[in-house]
Structure formats: structure tokens, C-alpha cells
């Protein structure tokens, strides 16, 4: 299946990463082959078949609306980030 360069760029945008020119060429080839492979589902008839999205046997699992004890503290979690200020995570300017 032929994948256009524009499709690669669109998918990279949806996926939130940039793609270099070299990468674009190899992705065109690889994604084309993968899409060709998965497109074999065209040949199977699934009329009147219900889809399955999960194989867990229960529908909804409820628990009490109470905050459970947490293993990690706010300090533990903030310590994982690169920059923090006033108990907030710092990132480059947004606006």
C-alpha cells in the first residue's frame, strides 16, 4: 500500500513528534508494508458480528468515592521532574 509523504507528516503531527527527511522515507516504506499486511482483513466477512473491545468479564467496577492511601507523596512526584518552582512543574513559555 502506497503511503503519501503528506500522510506521514499528518500522522507524525497526530503522534506529536517531528520526522526528519531520512526518517520520512523509511517510514513510507515500513508503514506501507505494515498497512498492506493488516489490510488482509478486507477478505474476511464480519457482517452481523459484534465488536469486542475488552476481554474483562465485568462491565463496570465501582469503588467508594474516597481517596485511597497513596504510596507516592507530592514531593516524591515533583522530584521526578526536571524543573519545579513553588510546588509546580516548570515548562518553557506557553504563550
Amino acid at each position: 500500500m502506497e503511503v503519501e509523504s503528506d500522510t506521514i507528516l499528518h500522522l507524525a503531527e497526530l503522534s506529536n513528534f517531528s520526522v526528519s527527511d531520512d526518517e520520512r522515507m523509511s517510514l513510507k516504506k515500513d508503514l506501507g508494508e505494515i498497512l498492506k499486511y493488516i489490510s488482509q482483513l478486507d477478505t474476511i466477512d464480519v457482517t452481523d458480528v459484534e465488536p469486542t473491545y475488552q476481554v474483562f468479564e465485568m462491565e463496570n467496577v465501582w469503588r467508594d468515592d474516597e481517596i485511597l492511601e497513596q504510596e507516592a507523596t507530592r514531593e516524591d512526584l515533583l522530584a521526578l521532574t526536571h524543573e519545579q518552582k513553588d510546588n509546580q512543574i516548570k515548562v518553557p513559555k506557553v504563550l
Partner: protein
Amino acid sequence: MKTANKTVTATRLVQDALDKAHEFEDYNIFTFLDEKGALEKAAEIDAKIAAGEKVGRLAGVPFAIKDNFLAPFGDTTASAHILQGFPSPITATAVAKLEAEGAIPIGRTNLDAFAHGSSTENSYFGPTLNSHDRERVAGGSSGGSAVAVALNIVEFATGTDTGGSIRQPASFNGVYGLKPTYGCISRYGVVAMASSTDCIGFFTKTPDDMDLLMEIASGKDSKDLTTLDDYYNNNKIANVNKIGVIKDFDNDSVDPEIREALKNKCEALKSKGYEIVELEMPALKYALAAYYIIVPAEIASNLSRYDGVRYGFRSENSKGLNELYANTRDEGFMPENKRRIMIGNFVLSSGFYDAYFLKAAKVRTLIIKEYAAAFLKCDFILTPVAPNPAFKLGEKVNDPVAMYLEDMMSVSLNLAGVPGLAIPAGETKNGLPIGLQLVGPRRSDKALIEFSKVLEEA
């Protein structure tokens, strides 16, 4: 497995494991060895034993965790650059349960980054070598764990199996590998790949070890609402009479030596009085295509959380926030991670959703029905794990579809949520391990392990 006592101490068991890990350093099995922490934990167990206190069922037993399990030693990297610099503050439930019984994690094992792969070659830290042939792959994605057990470094290791990531490396290295029923073991604290198929399981050297680990690790967890009620320990061992073999897998796409091994096991079972039932499961040939639609879709969603903001790697010198996201993900993911994320976003995108994702979800229903029908005709199914024994390093790494075909006989179990146990079944003429998998209905995990002992002798 050997547990610690007064004469053979936990310190001795752990030190031996660490020494072996160093001896096999060039196999690239571990992403992190927790030497200091492991020896400290061993000393604690030894002190308890010396004081005559009660110790757990796995007292002093050294084990390894796949590096996608969160635990507060080393970084949890999932062998991906984007998670480097992530020392987890929490412990995965499965690891906590094992440690509560006295088992001692000595380190983290290598995998295909984010468990995307079938050879451990997609790791940011390079491939792990096969235990039987250093020019061949370990299998994947749990390659490091399989090799750590096969080379006798540890007694057992944890793994994750989304489409074969425990069973295939187990078969490539001649050890037992179990993918339990979906929902059997808590996934709390394990890096998510595809939530509707991800399972936690183990690599062991014997069926009895597997049974013990399952008794300990399985069960409901309030931190993972997709865990089933405790059933493992109450499972009645069914009377096994009929073993199914899948006709659709008996063709040239499977290595002749593996087909031979399967045939031999069936003959041996027949001579012991078991009935061999031939099954036709025509939807299974679509399982791989359905899997490589459903799983990338879930990957695209699960991996959207890695943005360089809250933890892990962050790209330097980005001008704005969007650039920081894009650069971090661009530099932090491996090529296979990117392919899967992009395919996932493709099959979910408007205009393609019905033709790909919805269709795959319907094919999944057909596969589930085929398994249900099969288990009316037989008690368990015996199939190859993979179409071939361990292949050469580099042989498939540039051909994604060839790599995906490795999973053709393993993914359908994950789509259906049924358990599968990879068992060693001899070696090829060239000395490479052959594995077969025993498949059962949901919740038959314990019976599968029990029956594998019959196969061991067969």
C-alpha cells in the same frame, strides 16, 4: 527452587546470582543490577532465619524483574530513552507480593523498548544474546528475563506478555513461560502497552515453581480494577482427556523441526491414552492482522503520556511547550515505537476507523468464539509458540512485517484473554531450544501448569 536456610544463607544465594550476572555480562541481560540493595535485603532475611523467625515461601530466592515493572531501585526505563531518569517512587503489586514472601530482586532485565518487539533488538541498550547461541536473538520482548533464567543466574524472572512477549523468548531459550488468563495478576505499577491484552507472567525452570509464583502473585488488587476475583488457588484440576491440535498451523510456514516436535508429543500423549483432536480454526489466520491494528491503537493512546514534562527524559533547548513535547518524543522513542504509534493513530483516524479498528474488533469476536468452540471439543490445545527457533541477530530487524510474523501463533491468546504456557520441547539438530504452548480456557491456568508435567515426561 532453593530457598535460604541456616546453612545456605540468602546472602550466599544472592551473591552467587550476582556473580553469575557478572560472568554473563556480555549477554547484555540486565539494564540495572541492584547489588547493594539485594545484599541488604538478603542480610535481613538471614537475620530473621538466625533469630528463628518465620520467613516467606520464597525466602532469599534471587529473581529478576523485566525493566517495565516499577520498583524503587534503579530507573524503570522499559529499555526506552524517554524513561531514562525515572526512579519510580512506587512498587508494582506483583513485585511487592513476591518480595513479601522473601524473594529478592537482583536487577532489571532488558526488553524491546516499551515491549514493542519480538527479539529484544529494539532496546535502547542494544540486544540481549540468546542463551544457547550468542549469534542469535533472545526473543522478545522479555528477552533479558528469559536468558537470565535459562543461564541459571536467577531462579525466576517476571515478564509481560501482550502478544507473545513471555512465551516466545521462553521457547527461544528452553524455559517455562506463562501468560496467565487476562486479569489474573495485577498490572498496577507496570508500564502499559496495550491495556486490553497486557498480562503479567513469569519465566521458571519447572512447572512447580510456576505454580508457586502464581499462587503468590495472582488475585484481586484494589489498585487494578481489571483484576479478576481470586480464582487461581481454588481452581479444580480438570480431568484432561482430549488435546486439540490446530490444523491451520500445520503447514510450511512453520519450521519442520518444530512440527516434528509437536507430532512427537502428540504420539507420546496418544500412547498414554490421551485423545488427539484436530481442530479447524480458520479465523486464527487473521489474528495477527487484527492484533497489529488493535494493539498499535492502544499503544498510541497509552504512550501519549510520555511528554518529557513530569518524569523521564526531557529534550534540551526547546523554545516552547509544543516543541518540548515533539522533540522529547522524537528523541526519546525508538523507531519501532514510532511506527506503532503512527499505525495506531492511522487506524483510529477518521475515514479509516471503520475499515481498520472496528473491523479488527469484530475479527476479535470471531477469534474468541473459535476458542470457545474449540474448548467444547478438547480440554487443552497444543501448538507451536513461534514459527521458528531463535533467528540470527539482525536478520529481521529492518523488516517490521517479518518481525511481526514471529507472533502469528501467540497473539490470538491475548486477543481472546485465554492462558498459554510455553514449555520446553527438546532442541533442533543445531542445539536451539524448541518450545510448544499449551492453551486452555480462561481460568484454567493451574490445570495447564499441572498438565505440563505430563508433557514433560511424554
